[in-house]
C-alpha cells in the first residue's frame, strides 16, 4: 500500500546511478561536474553555427525553423524537470500540472494582447499569480493523498481546460487559442530574424529551472522531500510537517510551471487550449519517466527528446506507414516499453549496461588474489 506513491526509481537506484564505479573519482569525476557547464556553453554558442545535420533538422542549425524547434525542446526540458520536482523528488503524482503551465501562458498572452501591458511586468505578475493559484489549490488537494490527490488535481486542471475552451468574455480565444499580439512585445522578441533571442530565452528558462531544482536537491529541503516520497510517516516522526513541505514543493513546481508557460507563449507566439489539457500533464509524466524520474538530468533529457520526437514525427507524419504517422502512438509505445524494460529511464541505462560492459571488457590478468 505504501509503495503506491513511490515513483519508478527505487531509492536504491539513484545512488547506484551516480556512482557505478567508486574508485575512479578524480579525472572522470571532475569532467562529470564540468559537463553541464560545457553543454550550456555549447548551447549558448550554437546559434552561430551554420552546421547542417540532415535527417535531424531541416535547415542549418542557425535557421529560424531549427532554432524554434530547439527552443520548444528546451522549454519542455525545463517543464519536465519542474514537474519532476513534484513527481520524482516529492513523490506527488499530480495530474494537474498543465493548469499552472496554462496559467503562465494565458496570463502573459491575455495581459499583453488584450490589456497592452509591457512584457516584463506581465511575466512577473503572471508567475506570481501561478504561484498563488498553486498555493490555493494545493492547500485543498494536499488534504488528500495517493490516488485521491491525483484525481483532485486532475479535476482542478480539467476546470481550467473547460474554462479556457469556453472563452469567457472573449479573453482566451476558445478552441482557436489566442495569438500573442506582437505590438506589446519588445522588438528583440518579434520577427523571424529574432528567433535566436527566443532560443536564448528558452535556454535561460531551462537554466533557471535546473539551478533551482539542483539547489533544492543539494539543500536539506531536497533530502526531506525524498524522505517524504519514501516514507511520509518517518518525516512526521522527525517533527516536520509533511503537509507544509508538500505544499512548498507544490507551489515551487507551480511557479516554475508558470514561468515555463510564459516562456512557451513567447516562443510559439501565443497560447492554445492544448497546453491546459490533461494530455500535457500526461506527456510531462511520460517525459520524466522516460528520462528517469528523480534523477539529476533524467527529466531534462526526457523532456528534450520527447518534444523533439513529437515535433519531428508530426512533421514526418505523412511519410510513415499506418499508426507510425501518429507521434503519440510512437511515444506512447516507447513509454510502455520503457516502464517495463528500463524502469529507471534513460538515466539508469548506463548502470544497467554496466554488467554487460564489464563482461565484454577483456580482463588484464587473472585475479592475483
Amino acid at each position, binding site marked *: 500500500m505504501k509503495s503506491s506513491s513511490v515513483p519508478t526509481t527505487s531509492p536504491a537506484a539513484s545512488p547506484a546511478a551516480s556512482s557505478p564505479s567508486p574508485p575512479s573519482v578524480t579525472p572522470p569525476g571532475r569532467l562529470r561536474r564540468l559537463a553541464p557547464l560545457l553543454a550550456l556553453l555549447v548551447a549558448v554558442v550554437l546559434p552561430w553555427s551554420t552546421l547542417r545535420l540532415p535527417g535531424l533538422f531541416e535547415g542549418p542549425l542557425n535557421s529560424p525553423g531549427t532554432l524554434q524547434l530547439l527552443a520548444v525542446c528546451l522549454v519542455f526540458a525545463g517543464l519536465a524537470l519542474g514537474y519532476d520536482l513534484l513527481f520524482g523528488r516529492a513523490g506527488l503524482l499530480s495530474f494537474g500540472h498543465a493548469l499552472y503551465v496554462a496559467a503562465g501562458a494565458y496570463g502573459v498572452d491575455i495581459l499583453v494582447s488584450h490589456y497592452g501591458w509591457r512584457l516584463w511586468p506581465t511575466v512577473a505578475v503572471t508567475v506570481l499569480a501561478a504561484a498563488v493559484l498553486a498555493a490555493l489549490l494545493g492547500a485543498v488537494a494536499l488534504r488528500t493523498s495517493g490516488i485521491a490527490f491525483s484525481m483532485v488535481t486532475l479535476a482542478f486542471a480539467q476546470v481550467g481546460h*473547460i474554462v479556457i475552451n469556453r472563452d469567457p468574455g472573449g479573453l482566451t480565444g476558445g478552441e482557436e487559442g489566442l495569438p500573442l499580439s506582437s505590438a506589446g512585445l519588445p522588438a528583440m522578441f518579434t520577427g523571424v530574424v529574432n528567433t535566436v533571442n527566443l532560443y536564448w530565452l528558452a535556454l535561460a528558462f531551462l537554466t533557471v529551472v535546473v539551478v533551482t531544482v539542483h539547489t533544492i536537491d543539494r539543500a536539506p529541503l531536497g533530502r526531506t522531500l525524498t524522505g517524504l516520497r519514501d516514507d511520509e510517516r518517518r518525516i512526521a516522526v522527525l517533527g516536520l510537517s509533511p503537509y507544509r513541505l508538500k505544499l512548498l514543493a507544490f507551489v515551487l513546481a507551480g511557479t516554475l510551471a508558470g514561468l515555463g508557460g510564459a516562456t512557451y507563449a513567447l516562443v510559439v507566439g501565443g497560447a492554445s487550449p492544448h497546453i491546459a489539457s490533461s494530455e500535457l500533464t500526461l506527456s510531462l509524466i511520460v517525459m520524466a519517466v522516460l528520462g528517469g524520474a528523480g534523477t539529476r538530468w533524467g527529466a531534462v533529457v526526457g523532456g528534450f527528446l520527447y518534444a523533439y520526437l513529437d515535433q519531428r514525427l508530426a512533421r514526418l507524419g505523412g511519410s510513415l506507414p499506418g499508426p507510425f504517422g501518429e507521434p503519440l*502512438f510512437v511515444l*506512447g509505445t516507447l513509454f510502455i516499453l520503457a*516502464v517495463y524494460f528500463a524502469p529507471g529511464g534513460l538515466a539508469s541505462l548506463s548502470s544497467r549496461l554496466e554488467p554487460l560492459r564489464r563482461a565484454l571488457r577483456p580482463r588484464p590478468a587473472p585475479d592475483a588474489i
Partner: protein
Amino acid sequence: MSTVVLLALTGLGLAALYFLIASGLSLVFGLAGVLNFAHGLFLSVGAYAAWTVSESWGAIPAILLGVAVAATTGALVELVLIRPLYTRHTEQVLVTVGLSLAGVALLQSVWGADARVFPRPAWASSVVNIAGAQVPADRFLLIGAAVLVLLGLLAFLRFTRYGLVIRAGVENRDMVSALGIDVRNAFTLVFAIGGALAGLAGILAGMYFSSISPGQGASLLIFAFIVVVIGGLGSVTGAFAAAVAVGLLQQFVNYYGTAGAGDVSVVALLAAVLLLRPAGLAGKAAPA
C-alpha cells in the same frame, strides 16, 4: 415543468453513462488497485467495433460485438500489460497512461481524428411525451441499461462465488490470497467486466451524442473518475448514487447557469466531498 422533466431525464441519461464507465473503474480500482487510464480506450474500442458492423449487421448484433470486443480488450490488457507489474501501482498507472495515449493515436490512424456519425435504430430517435416534455427515447435506453447493469452487478457480486471473491478482495486482498484463492483470476474477470461495461457505455454514448470520435472516451473518463472518487473507491452502489448526483447537477447548472458552470460545479462537489468525507460516499478508505 416540462423543462425540468426534460433536464432531469437528460441528466439521468448522462448519469447512466457515467455509471457504466465508473462501475468498472471502481471495481478495478477497488480490487486490483489500478487507476485505469486506459478505460476510455475500452470505451472507444467498443464504440468503433459496433460502428464498423452496425450498417451490415443491424443494431443488436453490433452492440453485442462491441461489448465483446471491449471485454476482450480489457482482459487482454490485464493479462499482458498489468499482470507483470503486480503490486507496483505507480508503474501500472503509468502503463495505462501510455496505453491511453498510444491506443487513441492508433484509433485515429485507422478511423481518422474526426467524429463519425453513429447510426441509431429508428426507435431510439423517436420522441416520447412525458408531462408535456418531448423526451428522446434514447434517454430511456440509457437509464434502463444502467439500472439493469446495476441490478446485474449487485446480483453477481452477492450470489456467485466469483462475486464473493471480488467483494472479499476489495475488502482485503491479502487475506483472500492467504486463504488460498487465486485472486488474480478475479483481476482478469474484473477487467473484462469493466471493459464490457465501458464498451456498452461507448456504444450508448454514440447514440446519446449521435457521433463517436477517438478522444470521446478520454473526456467522459474524467467525469467518471470524479464519480468514482465521490462514490467511494470500490463501491458499485456508491458509484451509482454519485453518478446520479453528478449527472443531474451538471445538467441543471449547465442549463440555468452560464456555459461550463455545470462542469465547474461538479468539481466543486468533488472538492467538498473530499474535504468533508475523504473516503467518498460509500466510505471505504482509499489506500494512500
